[in-house]
């Protein structure tokens, strides 16, 4: 089996501070089996390349990522990714994060034939609007199409999955600047009151830093 998992750089030690967290983010999210197309067991795959400007790019030795699909085919995956980008447009957020939404929808589709059917016909409907491959349609027309589908069950399935999946992963935490599990040990000695662009509140309204005994 020519399967490999994209390894995570450990050599990028020139970044400090935030890097450990970001590396962890990449290692979690991009631990995706990348195989030759013909060796895939699933029904589809979506692939992408991290942009050079991506905050994740410097952290992964390979900028190529792939998500294997079981309940959707590659084309459906690609269209749903483009559709999700229109619902929650973040111009600088990498496709790799949107791919996590497709991954979660794919999991639902492989468990539930009704979801699979709903997603398949949604993609079909979009392709009909776009002429052939909706993913290749120009973004302005895509935005219009998404608007016209708002409130449909297909739209709701994608949106309600996306609002969870897109913002609940370590790549997103890094991108949007949320500490997540980095805060597990507490911010008491790591910047809980580091904000310096406003004056400190009066001491009587706040309280002392506690000691450990």
């Amino acid at each position, binding site marked *: 089996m020519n399967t490999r998992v994209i390894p995570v750089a450990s050599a990028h030690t020139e970044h400090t501070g935030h890097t450990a967290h970001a590396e962890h983010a990449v290692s979690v999210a991009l631990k995706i089996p990348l195989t030759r197309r013909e060796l895939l067991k699933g029904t589809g795959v979506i692939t992408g390349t991290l942009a050079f400007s991506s905050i994740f790019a410097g952290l992964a030795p390979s900028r190529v990522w792939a998500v294997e699909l079981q309940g959707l085919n590659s084309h459906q995956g690609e269209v749903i990714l483009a559709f999700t980008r229109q619902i*929650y447009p973040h111009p600088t957020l990498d496709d790799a994060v949107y791919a996590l939404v497709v991954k979660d929808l794919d999991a639902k589709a492989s468990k539930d034939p009704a979801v699979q059917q709903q997603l398949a016909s949604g993609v079909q409907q979009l392709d009909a609007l776009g002429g052939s491959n909706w993913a290749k349609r120009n973004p302005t027309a895509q935005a219009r199409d998404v608007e016209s589908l*708002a409130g449909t069950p297909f739209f709701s399935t994608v949106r309600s999955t996306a609002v969870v999946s897109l913002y609940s992963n370590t790549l997103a935490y890094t991108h949007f600047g949320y500490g997540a599990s980095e805060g597990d040990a507490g911010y008491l000695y790591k910047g809980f009151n580091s904000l310096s662009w406003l004056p400190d509140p009066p001491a*009587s*309204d706040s309280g002392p830093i506690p000691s450990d005994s």
Partner: protein
Amino acid sequence: MAQDNNKVRFSHNDERIVVIIGSGAGGGTLANELAQKGVNVVVLEAGALHTQGDFVTDEWGSFQMLSWLDKRTTSGTWRVARDFPNLPAWICKTVGGTTTHWAGASLRIRPYEFKAKTTYGDIKGASLLDWPLTREELDPYYDRAEKKMGVTRTNGLPGLPGNNNFKVMSTGAMKVGYKECNTGHMAINSIVRDDRSHCFQRGFCFQGCRTGAKWSTLYTELPRAQATGHMELRTQAHVVRIEHDARGKAKEVVYYDSDGKLQRQKARIVAVAGNSIETPRLLLNSHSGRFADGLANSSGQVGRNYMRHTTGSVYAVFDEKVDMFKGTTMAGIIEDEAVFDPKRGFAGGYHMETISLGLPFYAAFLDPGAWGPKFTQAMDEYAYTAGMWIVGEDMPRATNRITLNGDVKDQYGQPVANVHFDDHPNDEAMREHAFTQGSAVYAAAGAKKLYRVPPYPSTHNLGTTRMSSRPEDGVCNSYGQTHDVPNLFVSDGSQFTTGAAENPTLTIVTLAIRQADYITGQMSKRSI
């Protein structure tokens, strides 16, 4: 059972037991107070045991672990019914109940709020009553609760150090002229005490406090009660019915155990503390020939007057980073608006309290159902955002109520609770005022964008078996003892006659301490 600190096991046929249903602020406290006095107690908790080591930082993962997710339905004009039709409340099903999830704000209900009807007068469409209790009567018990819980700024304990989110609130509050804004009265250790750590400013108060700095019955009242050898905690024990004897006294509690087997526990006294949705549901589901409308419901008030506080949030975006997620979730409180001042156009008052949500929950709750560039821009500015939550007194209404939904059954075949809620015009006027004031606070601190965020699924659920001096107006007396069934008590926020403007946990604990004194007194007099 993986971890079982029980030192005693009581027979299911032991008729001398006090059975407490629920292990949160009310049930957990009552259990410990009774056990410390040598009263034998069985606590039946529907949830499983999750300890501090089990708590996770992942918001959705934690939500799945700790929340009450059994089916419920909703109706009414409140937005929660549209956005979260099966999640009217964000409360817990786990040992320790919602004290695992609460943020720790511990404010005493103000004297005038105990006299809501007298103070506010007749308000159309509201079923206001005065509490059968005054602040003066309750103060000694508040003292005991604050001491037990280690509330900051009481008993010589310092306040918590303010985090970034608080700095923003404090600056804005001073600029708009508010005088009372500080890091609050919090049941979070500001120093090492009570064999528990001080707060490390993790910021995951809602996900369960891993250090134990935040008071929760999970690691205070419950293990201490068990240590006396007078309390047995049974987890995943889901009560479906309370049965009574021929004289109309509660005699037995029927529950499903962790294996799904039906069990019965005889009782001398039954105390219900399942939070204000499950408590009335259980009483309603316990209807019998004698109590056709539900147990302790001769007044018809069981399930009525459901209150959830007038809430909402203001989030504000600044040019520079706030990182609101760093440090305690409820890091500061403005108290200036928690007064009775009808010139504002509404009765009752409200607090503004900082709140922070992690990225996943900010996405879920900022504007439920929203999508498109306006929404994503708000998400892009997450790190630059500060937040506050509004907590105000809402009006009790007879029509806001918990009823049994006979069309929908839970996993035990029991009708689920339907939660009906319509905002009263007073609630709407207060929310509007609070949104305006909260926005002014942040504008004064330099906000460039402001978001008015609708109420989350309810965390403060109150009033559904309210206290009243007259039996026809409510379900229990000032001790939480039901008017109809003398050995049946309510020990949670369902007892609240009105909602007041304060986060309810401190008062629930206070009432439980007082109730324990009353119960032991009555037991020794053999009157129950």
